[in-house]
């Protein structure tokens, strides 16, 4: 028995305009200040206001949102009493919006209590719309909420099936102006979701197709989307197509891994994010080739070989894991991203000083339990070292 959860998805060109058709009276828009500054928020507010809806913007969301930010948002929501909450932005504002929504509906909870084993009873006061402005996190779809416990410098995997959004508006125009680094980082996040959703031990018949198609599209379109981000004439048809394909694929990957799980690259990536503040997509994108190699050297590498084969990577099945990892590293280099942590610019001494904490935290990250090959503590420590130095996995 398992569940497949998804919001109603309105996607494609001009899908944002469907906001006009949603009857709202008080909307709390959760976003980040940077998006307000670059002018992405105002057109959304204008659409919401057209029906006479009152709007309040909460833009105190930082990257890697903290438990404290969510608590603050809860107070704002309680004062404003919205009937809709709108999460607008990348993963951070959307995850924050989900958490604020839960706490607004359930004032008896604190963020750390949002877990998948309880009945929340949401939708008594309000509903949730998610609007992604990057093509990566899939947070518009997923019910998972990643928050940072800043006291312990650790990311917490929270969430409950009920807190998936009611409606996701997936309009490619909102992500078409992403700069090169953001395009690369978020694209690699989406690719990692697609790959890990397919290889994790919780994958299902229902999620496999979504993950596979997303992985195929991202491998094909991410380099062009990256080129678009650097181009003086980004409105060329091939660029627009690549941007739209990336936006839809990030959402499909979200539906795939969000209803299965991610895996080891996310367990390690979460730690690199909380300890060294490496942007999430860059962190998981660096880790993925190594975790693929590690899984491919396990007792049953068939899942990796299957995916590599389906993605058109050719060769003897025993070699497919290595070839797949090499293809992922080539892609990262093509879009200007690092392939090891030394290239990310982490100081080795600093890295070594934090290693024990990082291995401890990754060992108890929620995403490690679905790894196709479960590492021992020592193997996990070795993985960190290899990912730092760039040495392909040989154990």
């Amino acid at each position, binding site marked *: 028995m398992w569940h497949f959860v998804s919001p109603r998805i309105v996607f494609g060109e001009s899908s944002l305009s469907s906001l006009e058709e949603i009857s709202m009276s008080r909307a709390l828009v959760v976003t980040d200040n940077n998006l307000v500054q670059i002018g992405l928020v105002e057109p959304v507010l204008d659409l919401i206001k057209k029906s006479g809806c009152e709007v309040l913007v909460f833009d105190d969301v930082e990257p890697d949102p903290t438990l404290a930010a969510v608590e603050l948002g809860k107070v704002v929501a309680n004062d404003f009493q919205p009937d809709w909450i709108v999460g607008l932005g990348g993963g951070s504002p959307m995850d924050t919006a989900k958490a604020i929504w839960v706490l607004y509906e359930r004032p008896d909870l604190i963020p750390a209590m949002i877990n998948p*084993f309880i009945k929340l009873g949401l939708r008594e006061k309000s509903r949730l719309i998610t609007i992604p402005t990057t093509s990566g996190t899939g947070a518009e779809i997923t019910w998972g909420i990643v928050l940072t416990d800043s006291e312990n410098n650790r990311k917490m995997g929270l969430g409950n099936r009920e807190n998936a959004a009611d409606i996701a508006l997936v309009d490619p125009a909102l992500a078409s102006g992403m700069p090169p680094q953001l395009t690369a980082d978020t694209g690699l996040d989406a690719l990692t979701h697609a790959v890990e959703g397919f290889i994790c031990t919780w994958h299902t018949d229902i999620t496999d197709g979504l993950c596979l198609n997303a992985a195929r599209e991202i491998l094909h379109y991410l380099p062009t989307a990256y080129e678009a981000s650097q181009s003086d004439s980004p409105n060329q048809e091939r660029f627009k197509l690549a941007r739209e394909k990336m936006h839809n694929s990030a959402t499909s990957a979200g539906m795939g891994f969000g209803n299965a799980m991610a895996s080891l690259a996310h367990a390690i990536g979460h730690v690199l994010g909380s300890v060294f503040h490496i942007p999430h997509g860059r962190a998981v994108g660096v880790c993925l080739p190594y975790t693929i190699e590690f899984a491919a050297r396990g007792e049953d590498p068939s899942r990796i070989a299957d995916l590599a084969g389906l993605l058109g990577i050719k060769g003897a099945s025993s070699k497919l894991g290595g070839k797949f990892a090499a293809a992922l590293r080539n892609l990262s280099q093509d879009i200007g991203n690092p392939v090891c942590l030394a290239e990310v610019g982490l100081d080795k001494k600093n890295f070594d000083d934090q290693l024990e904490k990082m291995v401890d935290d990754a060992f108890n990250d*929620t995403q490690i339990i679905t790894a196709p090959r479960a590492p021992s503590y020592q193997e996990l420590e070795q993985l960190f070292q290899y990912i730092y130095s760039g040495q392909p996995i040989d154990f």
Partner: protein
Amino acid sequence: MAHKFPSDEWVKAVRELLNNSDSYQRSAKDWEGDFIFVVEPDEEYADTAYLHLELYHGSSPGAAMVDPDNLPETEYTLNAPFSTWRKVIDGKLDPIQGMMTGQLKLKGNLMKIMRYPKAAQEIVACCAKIPTDW
């Protein structure tokens, strides 16, 4: 030697494996909180059984099948019918997915247990390693 499930020997065998598991010791190194696994009756098993597993800082100081009239107070209880336990121990049902779909019912401080998913997985991995008579 295979052990009957549920039984005193079976839960003591789990304890022994846990105490030899490096992965458990590492992942649960600051864990405090005992469990009672409640095996509920169904068409395959007529009784109710209570298996007490003591857990403290990465090891298990004690384990026993306990009498319902004399249940120790524990931080957690995990309830499921016999046939659901069998699926978990046979590796056919992931216990966390089982809890997320209401097939296993966990009571206790859920906020705390969310921080120890690997430790929870290791306990089940140890259960699965025990040759079991049904």
